[in-house]
């Protein structure tokens, strides 16, 4: 029981790291970016390639799994995404689905369609028993990393100058621009960080979630659920939502395996019907 709670928490934390970039672009910047999973996949593949082909240790690949998607995100934001901020949601959906299709086919072409294996270091394998709970070492590692990230993100967003500028830019780009805030640079930086975090999540999660070219399509739904259920006005909403979803999903798969992903989807629909703006949205 507690083991399920623990695994669910690790899963939820992972979902949060994967989805928090989307929480910013979709939630704060109001851009429906279905291609978010492609950045996560990029991070996963960076780690897989570095470890399996070049023998780079797991921990060293993580910063690169952040940097490469972040850079890719930055380039794409500057060249393509930027032009679509003011367009209709339909255009954004079409554009980002197009990107997903391209990413899936391109990775399939270059890397093959088989599942990528990532061998986590031996000191992270196995489980230990603490107070009668079976605790997976790798999962605790994920929880620790994600916990640090959550605190850092929340700190940056609420306590730093950059955070307040970002919030201003999001709330009203015109007024923010009038106050001398360089909105476009802030958006680009945020987008890059969001993509980088997705990549990091992809690298961390490759072992648990599996990594193959259909990754962006398979998990797109989960990211979207996290953000929509969490509400799109803050970072704590998606965080709580991913914990809730992670635990619900793991518990659902454990107790009622025959229902499959049914639990999650139904949960989402119910939440959205009751609270269309998300579970933890503050009234604006």
């Amino acid at each position, binding site marked *: 029981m507690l083991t399920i709670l623990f695994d669910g928490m690790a899963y939820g934390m992972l979902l949060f790291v994967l989805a928090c970039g989307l929480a910013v672009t*979709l939630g704060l910047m*109001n851009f*429906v970016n279905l291609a978010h999973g492609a950045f996560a996949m990029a991070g996963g593949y960076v780690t897989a390639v570095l470890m399996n082909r070049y023998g780079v240790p797991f921990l060293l690949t993580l910063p690169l799994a952040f940097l490469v998607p972040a850079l890719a995100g930055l380039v794409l934001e500057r060249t*393509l995404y930027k*032009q*679509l901020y*003011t*367009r*209709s*949601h*339909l*255009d954004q*959906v*079409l*554009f980002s*689905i*197009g*990107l*997903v*299709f*391209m*990413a*899936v*086919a*391109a990775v*399939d*072409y270059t890397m093959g369609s088989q599942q990528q294996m990532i061998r986590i270091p031996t000191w992270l394998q196995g489980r230990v028993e603490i107070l009668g709970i079976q605790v997976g070492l790798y999962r605790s590692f994920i929880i620790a990393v994600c916990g640090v990230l959550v605190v850092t993100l929340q700190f940056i967003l609420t306590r730093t100058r950059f955070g307040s500028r970002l919030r201003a830019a999001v709330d009203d780009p015109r007024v923010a621009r009038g106050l001398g805030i360089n909105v476009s640079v802030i958006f680009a930086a945020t987008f890059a960080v969001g993509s980088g975090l997705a990549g990091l999540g992809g690298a961390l999660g490759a072992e648990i979630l599996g990594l193959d070219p259909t990754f962006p*399509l398979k998990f797109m*739904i989960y990211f*979207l*659920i996290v953000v*929509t259920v969490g509400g*799109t*006005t803050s970072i704590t909403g998606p965080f709580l939502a991913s914990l809730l979803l992670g635990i619900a999903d793991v518990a659902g798969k454990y107790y009622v395996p*025959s*229902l*499959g*992903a*049914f639990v999650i*989807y*139904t949960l*989402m*629909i119910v939440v*959205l*019907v009751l609270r*269309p*703006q998300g579970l933890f949205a503050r009234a*604006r």
Partner: protein
Amino acid sequence: MQSNTADNVRAALGRRGRWGWGEIAFWLMAAATLFFLPERHLILNEVAIIGLFALSLDLILGYAGIVSLGHAAFFGLGAYAAGILARNGIGDPLVGLAVAALAAAILGFVTSFLVLRGSDLTKLMVTLGVALVLGELANQMSWLTGGADGLQGISMGPILGLFEFDIFGTVAYTYSLVVTFVLFVLARRIVVSPYGLSLRSIRDNPLRARAVGIPVNRRLVAIYTLAAAYAGIAGALLAQTTQFVSLDVLAFHRSADVMLVLVIGGVGYLYGGLIGAVFFKVLQDVLSAWTPQYWQFWIGLILVLLVLAGRERLTDRIRALWPRSRRSLVADASQPLPTTKAREV
């Protein structure tokens, strides 16, 4: 004076409803394929079905502005309804269509209330969620749907008791084309009616539409239900003419594909879905012959370029070929305003 205005309005509506030469030529060409392309009837059958499916999406997206990522829910339900019916001994195609339409319409009616709530994003997620839930259901209820193996053993009776399905797909194609045409005519009647105009006003500005006394929610529920029935019929046609249904009919890529088909052809003038279906199938044929595994890449590229180039500008050209549309181009050119932000809704 009063009756004079009413007459003017009636005359204007009548003008809008008149068939242009371009439209007649389009359908004559479609009918001609029955005789001139006999070896292509199997693929043309699929084109007709996808066209009908896209037409159904156009009703809600192009005319009512509802963005749906889960339209396959209705398509799949229709396909399973017709398939299960046929497997249990009721093989009459038209009865199958009616049952599929009814089943999809009921689901559409029920879920339309979910779609009315929230912003674009919420709509997107709820429609997507409904399709996913149905997909899971179909997967789990394998005693009814055959699960991952698909629904096998569908045997169809002759249409109207007269025409047996043949292996060249000629009867199947004729059947699908006639059904699509009849439903198209009906849809066309609806969108040029005052009701159709009220839908457009809701799409362009829901707030103002409500202010001038249009019962927004009721109108949206009606069109969503109708579009669901259309999609259900398209699914039933697929099940009946291919005599097979698999989980694939409810998959996410179905919803994405139909959106793509509609967008390639252009949103909001009914022919978009049909033209898009022809284009999509030809493209798929050419690309998958060329690069069997990676044709999705090119589809994705086309989507991205289409959006970046401004899909409205491109499709307005096609649209301008129809005289009726050209007259109303000025009105249509004012596209739906950039969607209001979630927090303003």
